[in-house]
């Protein structure tokens, strides 16, 4: 099985680290993984994205033109990546501040209002875990335990006390995500 995912949003939205957690989780689960960020000055103020591949086999090309799953956290990202989801694939979007909603009918679309939720719950730091939770709900590619071990691997020891909070956020995200009908 191979899962090809793109996550995109504003620079400050934790897109890269969300991808990293996913990659580390894949590592824990014994998968082949690749993680490619968009890098450079466009991060500064602009948008940022990361491609994550999780696979049971050796990954040939880490560069992709279409994706099994796209996660978009703002309007420009939605505009850019909706069309690149493979037919039958999955789009997860944060509805915050959108002026144009997704419109494809050949893919599975989910909405997760993580921005709104995390602001109202004063938990912007775990916003990306909410979304990850949402992803794992609709695409259970990685076991939640492995995500937590991955997170543990990734975080320096001094931050390990934050793990329970993150676990909660994953669970909240699983509840927050909704099917979106075009």
């Amino acid at each position: 099985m191979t899962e090809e995912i793109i996550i995109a949003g504003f620079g400050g939205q934790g897109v890269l680290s969300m991808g990293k957690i996913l990659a580390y989780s894949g590592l824990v689960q014994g998968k082949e993984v690749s993680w490619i960020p968009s890098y450079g000055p466009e991060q500064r103020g602009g948008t940022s994205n990361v491609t994550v591949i999780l696979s049971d086999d050796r990954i040939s090309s880490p560069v992709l033109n279409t994706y099994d799953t796209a996660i978009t956290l703002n309007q420009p990202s939605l505009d850019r990546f909706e069309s690149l989801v493979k037919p039958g694939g999955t789009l997860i979007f944060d509805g915050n501040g959108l002026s144009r909603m997704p419109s494809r009918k050949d893919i599975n679309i989910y909405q997760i209002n993580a921005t709104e939720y995390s602001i109202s719950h004063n938990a912007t730091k775990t916003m990306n875990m909410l979304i990850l939770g949402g992803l794992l709900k609709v695409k259970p590619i990685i076991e939640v335990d492995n995500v937590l071990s991955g997170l543990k691997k990734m975080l320096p020891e001094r931050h390990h006390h934050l793990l329970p909070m993150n676990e909660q956020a994953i669970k909240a995200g699983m509840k927050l995500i909704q099917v979106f009908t075009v």
Partner: protein
Amino acid sequence: MRKGSEEIMLMKGNEAIAHAAIRCGCDGYFGYPITPQSEVMETLMELEPWNTTGMVVLQAESEVASINMVYGAAGCGKKVMTSSSSPGVSLMQEGISYMAGAELPGVIVNVMRGGPGLGTIQPSQADYFQAVKGGGHGDYKMPTLAPASVQEMADLTVLAFDLAFKYLTPTMLLADGIIGQMMEKVVLPPYQPRLTEDEIRAKYPWATLGKPHGKKPNHITSLELLSEDMENLNKRLQARYRTLEKEEVRFEEIACEDADYVFVAFGISARVCQKAVEIARSEGIKAGLLRPITLYPFPVEKIKELSNRVKGFTVIELSAGQMVEDVRLAVNGKVPVEFYGRMGGVVPSPNEAFNALKEKLIQ
């Protein structure tokens, strides 16, 4: 090569270079920041190897200074390196030529970005000519290794040092922005201790460590007053290059045994082509991939051999077409050699590579 703890780690290609350098007993790193490779020095500074192996890490004032620091340290028989990206590597060309002329080992990492000029910071392979034909002045060649995965970023760093010291030559690790920035699984090479001064004196009697009593002094130089002497130096270098060409060619073949058509590609392009081979095979086209790992020495014999049994080659590069010339030189007219490339930081998709094969070569 792999011994010790086989711990599987996840890291960026640039980070893997830093870890591998420390582990293989590197004595020093000198560099100047530039995207997309600044993580090499940043990782070293984070790891503080001066506290463990004693490795020196110094941020220089420029790439010109960096390469000349590498020259100085290499002249002492030390295992040293620098890293940069395209514009910075252009600034090193005089220094690289000096190292070649002075027969000094040292590793230069170029994590290529789109040029010419300031260009973009996106991935590119357009410094191939600079690396393998001679961006600096004079007749020199530089072993040039092209990693295609994070694992190879680590492994080829170690190999680059080995070649540098075996052939007393600057050696280049020619990666691209994607291989530098992507994270993959990697098993780091085992620790090798840094050489002691006595070991350096024994292995590299030319090193300037201070002239021992009663011995002749050592001179690191690339200067000869008489052209005859300079020609002799050049002959020595050329002889060494012939040995390199005989002994050190490395490549990977994927599905070439029964192939009618063969992609030739290195680095990230080879990864893209690997998927293109899968696509082609799924459409019943017998495609294969030859991935040069050493760009210099180039797998000339292998390509010659293949050109006797395949119907044609498609070369895919992130450039306007550079390595394709070496493929053509090796094929020497026997079968068609077609080219497809993207420039300025754009990476072709596996589908594009496959289409190039189909449209240019097969139809």
